[in-house]
């Protein structure tokens, strides 16, 4: 092999290494180990579709729209040749390993995706969905629909890991069927200058939604998050837990639950920790009752690390920096079920980094 070709090969290998490293950060395992299925979009192309389970269907969305006419109902606003996935878990099946979806902006500055995930009745599945970029600046737009049918359980973990000058906009609509469960864990600990996420969740009889988000707004980054949950039918339940740390960034979190029927129950908890004088945390827990037998509540606490708590930890022999770091780490520590050990460790490393950053 001549020198030129060798250099080219090394460059290519190096690039692949960078890609894999980036994807690792969002939990996308390029080797597909311990994954039931994989779908990767790099820039404007689908670069991986793999399906290791016969209980699972994974297609490009454009093909699925042609195959299933009923999808048009959910995808009215989606153009025919949309870039994105269609995933469907066949009825009465439990998918052991998570399915992974990755959205990667490698060279292009713009990426728009549309996705539909269907958990058919009596299914159980975990989805890991991650977004990241190698380009230094760019815009990502993602629109997703999740249909969780009767008695199904869908757990979605979304990890965003953006370079500084990128912005991300995502819109999600979720329908939780009768006695179904939808769990969403949104982890945005290293984001670009702007991150917006809007979700609407409609829950049918006996259905449950648990929405958790952990957010870190560093200097010059802006968050805007809104989750609107509607408890449409009797005994529907929802719990929202939002944890935000601002270290100079701005974070606007609006969480809303509407109780429309008998026996519905909803709780919102918004916690914010402000580490410096420049950041802003604006949380708005909002409740609306449209039935006398709905039970809705919220708690919200936003503030600095309290002097009293710091003094207490210091009186146990812990120096000031370590005490602050202990509080920050504890604040962000949310154990997410179904994560691979690698991903859990990667999140823990980020939390560790933030806990050190937050004390300086």
């Amino acid at each position: 092999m001549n020198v030129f070709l060798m250099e080219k090969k090394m460059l290519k290998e190096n690039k692949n290494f960078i890609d894999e490293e980036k994807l690792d950060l969002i939990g996308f395992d390029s080797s597909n180990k311990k994954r039931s299925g994989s779908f990767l979009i790099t820039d404007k192309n689908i670069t991986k579709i793999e399906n290791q389970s016969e209980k699972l269907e994974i297609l490009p969305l454009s093909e699925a729209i042609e195959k299933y006419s009923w999808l048009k109902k959910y995808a009215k606003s989606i153009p025919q040749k949309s870039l994105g996935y269609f995933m469907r878990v066949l009825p009465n099946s439990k998918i052991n390993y998570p399915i992974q979806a990755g959205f990667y902006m490698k060279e292009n500055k713009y990426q728009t995706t549309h996705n539909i995930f269907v958990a058919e009745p009596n299914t159980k599945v975990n989805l890991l969905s991650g977004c990241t970029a190698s380009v230094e600046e760019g815009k990502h737009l993602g629109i997703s629909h999740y249909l969780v049918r009767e008695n199904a359980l869908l757990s979605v973990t979304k990890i965003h890991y953006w370079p500084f000058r990128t912005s991300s906009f995502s819109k999600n609509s979720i329908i939780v069927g009768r006695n179904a469960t939808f769990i969403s864990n949104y982890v945005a600990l290293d984001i670009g200058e702007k991150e917006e996420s809007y979700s609407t969740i409609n829950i049918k009889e006996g259905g449950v939604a648990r929405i958790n988000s952990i957010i870190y707004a560093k200097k010059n980054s802006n968050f805007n998050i809104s989750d609107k949950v509607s408890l449409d039918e009797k005994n529907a339940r929802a719990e929202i837990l939002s944890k935000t740390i601002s270290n100079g960034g701005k974070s606007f979190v609006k969480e809303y639950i509407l109780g429309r029927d008998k026996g519905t129950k909803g709780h919102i908890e918004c916690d914010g920790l402000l580490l410096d004088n420049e950041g802003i945390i604006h949380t708005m827990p909002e409740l609306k009752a449209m039935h006398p037998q709905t039970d809705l509540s919220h708690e919200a606490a936003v503030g600095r690390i309290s002097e009293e708590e710091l003094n207490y930890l210091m009186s146990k022999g812990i120096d000031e920096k370590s005490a602050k770091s202990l509080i920050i780490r504890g604040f962000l520590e949310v154990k997410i079920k179904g994560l691979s050990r690698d991903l859990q460790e990667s999140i823990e490393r980020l939390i560790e980094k933030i806990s050190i950053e937050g004390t300086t």
Partner: protein
Amino acid sequence: MKKNLLEIKDLWVKAENKTILKGLNLSIAEGESHVIFGPNGLGKSTLLGSIIGFPRLKIIKGEILFKGKSLSDLPIYERVKRGMGIAFQHPPTVRGVKLGKLLEVINTSGEKIQGIAKELKLEEHLKRDTNQAFSGGEIKASEIMQLFLQKPELLLLDEPDSGVDVDNIKIISSYIQKLLQKDLPIVKRKKSAIIITHGGTILNYVNIDFGHVMIEGVLTPQANPYDIFDKIKRNGYRDCYECFSNGEKNAKRK
């Protein structure tokens, strides 16, 4: 003669523009335990807070020497590193910091956390945020457990007996006894303590060497703690303070 571990000379302390300690003196030698009696709100906790170094308490006069060296300007954690430890009466809830994690971080003695937590009925609490919805007794058990892992030379115990039921006070006291090396002959003991009590229950469970009464920011000289407590029960704090303020012998004459 044993060395003084702690020496407080003419200490005046202010908090939020109110002078609370007004010329307090106290000497504690190695291996001695001292109890301080007194009505609530008259400076007992301020004394412990000043020794540990809470920034809101301003020393306007006097000094505190620990192992012969002044503590002034030393941050709280440095004082702890030098060998003191505190158990609070009303500690704050520390959001996000699990008790188990805190115990792990401060465990400098290598004691086994699980076993002690089981004995102190705190196993379930290890997974909770520190002090989150702990009962009065659980708080005391958790605070004493923390000291047990740190093994300080000077223990500052703020009302370790308040709000604790009889069964639990026995267990907590057994740990205080161990910390104070009460199994050793008095000449061999190295650990000392200041124990604040309002109700005096702790005297039934821990052998304490000396007692003082605090009224209006000063202490009576050291005397037999059991005699003091008898007099408090009979005549109240103020009479007792007057009785002991000129020394133990005078008090006995009365």
